[in-house]
């Protein structure tokens, strides 16, 4: 919604300004305001329930956040038992005591034995990989969210802001149609010509969804998994046309609302981060960057940090640009041209945070939040360029023409 160009209205509401020559010309002015408001509202509701927009933005988020979580799991493979597993100083019992106060849940706390943890780790890696690839995406998105929530809750004191962003987005993504493009689902639909409507031929998808319901059922009250299973099982049969249309409308409305919430959530993050900084003395007098660059825990390359921490004017400029862009993000990102400037500054900032403060996962998560605001045409352009570059590199490496020609820069 927010991130997509409005496009043509879906058209079941008469356009208010009809061509004058084929009207009988009763010399009437525009319809009264309340009629126009009602028509506008109906048109908006029609758009919300109509064809899903922002599919490429949703797919980008799926690949991006799935990739961030997968990278975190693989990066910590050797430390996995220390961080989330049986060797953690934060024992399962302590985790339960902390989560009890906030109704937190984790699939990792279902059993305390090591084999359960290793099994769940493997399931998490597999489910996240399939989610990134877009394989039965709605079902794998539920598994993805269950795993992100579980790994977060198991060791709440191991998380940082990047994990918070990932957790929020993994939840919102369940409600988006993030598997329609750039996915194995899309490839299967192209090859078999099968529709998305439930019915015969979707048995495999129903099976995966049931698996996801069982996983979610370990965290939720028992009746929730029964409801979930009932909904999933209806996917075995074709729905009557009107119900099928309602299903499609609901899917679209959820998708649009979720994308809007994602966009708004990004704005909330920046507005809060910016407005809290405005109150700070160090951000006002421009020394904040100096302190940030001298924190031992966030200094993977002290020499580089020393270079960037160079001078009063530079430091003040960095601090002020940071605060101004964060506070202004929510306003500027809806401006047609200014948003490119803001997004570019944000991406630069997060690149700096990734390298200088040693927080690549956090930076990647935040950068993905910025990228939702890019228009579809821009994403497709970058994708095409990436595909061309990928083919060129591939051709050079293999020194023969790429027979398949499948660009895979963003897919995999």
């Amino acid at each position, binding site marked *: 919604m927010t991130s997509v160009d409005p496009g043509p209205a879906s058209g079941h509401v008469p356009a208010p300004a009809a061509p004058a020559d084929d009207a009988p010309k009763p010399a009437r002015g525009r319809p009264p305001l309340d009629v126009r408001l009602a028509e506008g509202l109906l048109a908006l509701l029609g758009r919300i329930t109509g064809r899903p927009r922002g599919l490429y933005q949703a797919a980008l988020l799926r690949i991006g956040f799935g990739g961030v979580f997968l990278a975190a799991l693989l990066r910590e493979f050797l*430390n996995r038992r220390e961080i989330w597993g049986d060797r953690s100083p934060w024992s399962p019992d302590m985790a339960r005591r902390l989560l009890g106060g906030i109704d937190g849940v984790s699939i990792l706390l279902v059993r305390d034995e090591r084999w359960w943890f290793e099994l769940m780790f493997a399931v998490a890696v597999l489910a996240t990989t399939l989610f990134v690839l877009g394989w039965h995406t709605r079902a794998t998105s539920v598994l993805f969210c269950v795993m992100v929530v579980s790994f977060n809750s198991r060791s709440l004191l191991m998380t940082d802001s990047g994990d918070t962003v990932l957790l929020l987005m993994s939840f919102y993504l369940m409600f988006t149609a993030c598997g329609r493009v750039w996915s194995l689902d899309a490839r299967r639909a192209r090859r078999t010509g099968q529709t998305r409507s439930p019915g015969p031929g979707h048995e495999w998808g129903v099976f995966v969804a049931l698996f996801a319901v069982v996983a979610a059922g370990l965290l939720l009250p028992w009746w929730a998994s029964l409801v979930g299973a009932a909904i999933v099982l209806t996917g075995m049969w074709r729905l009557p*046309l*009107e119900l099928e249309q*309602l299903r499609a*409308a609901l899917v679209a*409305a959820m998708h649009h609302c979720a994308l809007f919430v994602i966009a708004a959530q990004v704005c909330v993050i920046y507005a809060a*981060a910016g407005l809290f*900084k405005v109150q*700070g003395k160090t951000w006002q007098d421009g020394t904040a960057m100096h302190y940030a660059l001298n924190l031992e825990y966030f200094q993977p390359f002290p020499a580089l940090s020393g270079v960037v921490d160079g001078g009063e004017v530079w430091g003040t400029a960095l601090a002020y640009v940071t605060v101004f862009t964060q506070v202004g993000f929510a306003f500027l990102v809806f401006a047609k041209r200014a948003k490119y400037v803001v997004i570019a500054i944000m991406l630069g900032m997060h690149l700096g945070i990734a390298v200088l403060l*040693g927080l690549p996962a956090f930076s990647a998560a935040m950068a993905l939040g910025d990228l939702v605001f890019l228009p579809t045409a821009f994403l497709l352009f970058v994708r095409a360029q990436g595909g061309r570059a990928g083919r060129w590199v591939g051709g050079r490496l293999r020194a023969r023409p790429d027979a398949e020609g499948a660009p895979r820069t963003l897919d995999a």
Partner: protein
Amino acid sequence: MPAQETPVAGVDPAADPAAGRAADKLPPAGPAVDPEDPDARSPRVQLVAALLAVLLVVGAGFHLLFVSLHVAPENQASRKYSEDIRGWIFPLFEQNWKLFAPDILAVNVRLNARVQYRAADGTVRESAWTDLTGDDIAHIQGNPFPSKADQNLVRRAWDFYLGSHNADESPANNQAELAEEYLRRIVVKRFQDAGRADGIVAVQLRAVSTPIAAPGSSPTQPTVRELGWWETKRDDFR
């Protein structure tokens, strides 16, 4: 669900002229109507769809309202509805965006630990201080993708302790015991990893805080906060 025998999934042209017209144009074998096509929907479907959309939009609006109140500084609105906000936000949507704000804590804290252990001759001895934070930093430096185990374990455990204790080390809330247990087990684990597991009977922590010097000024002396000895429990060793 009533199963459909007709090849055109449940389309009844008599009941829905618009859908019937759309179906006429397509080959009978394929899907008759694209369910996503808003123009092919009957007024009845459009009405129910619009109602669903209103519900979802209102729901999304409430969610964003709660998130905003949760993120904002405490105010009269969030005080009035604090119970409702808490109920909605926890555990999934908890968030805090005071990133290096309002002010960066301009101090480097190094957590040191030492243990009392039973030596081979049966006497209890005291180890030298070990720099837990120093080990973390040694792992972080030069690493473009540092591990959570180095970045967050000791750092956040100490924050957790500070948040649950007063300045005189007395408990400030009901998480104090949890924080102490966590720190104690971290120390035991670090000594175990270093091959010093045998017979640790007690551990002690101290935090050495070195303020970061303001630009152009000379560094100030570190301050030391030393905690008491904590006896280890059987469950601390794993």
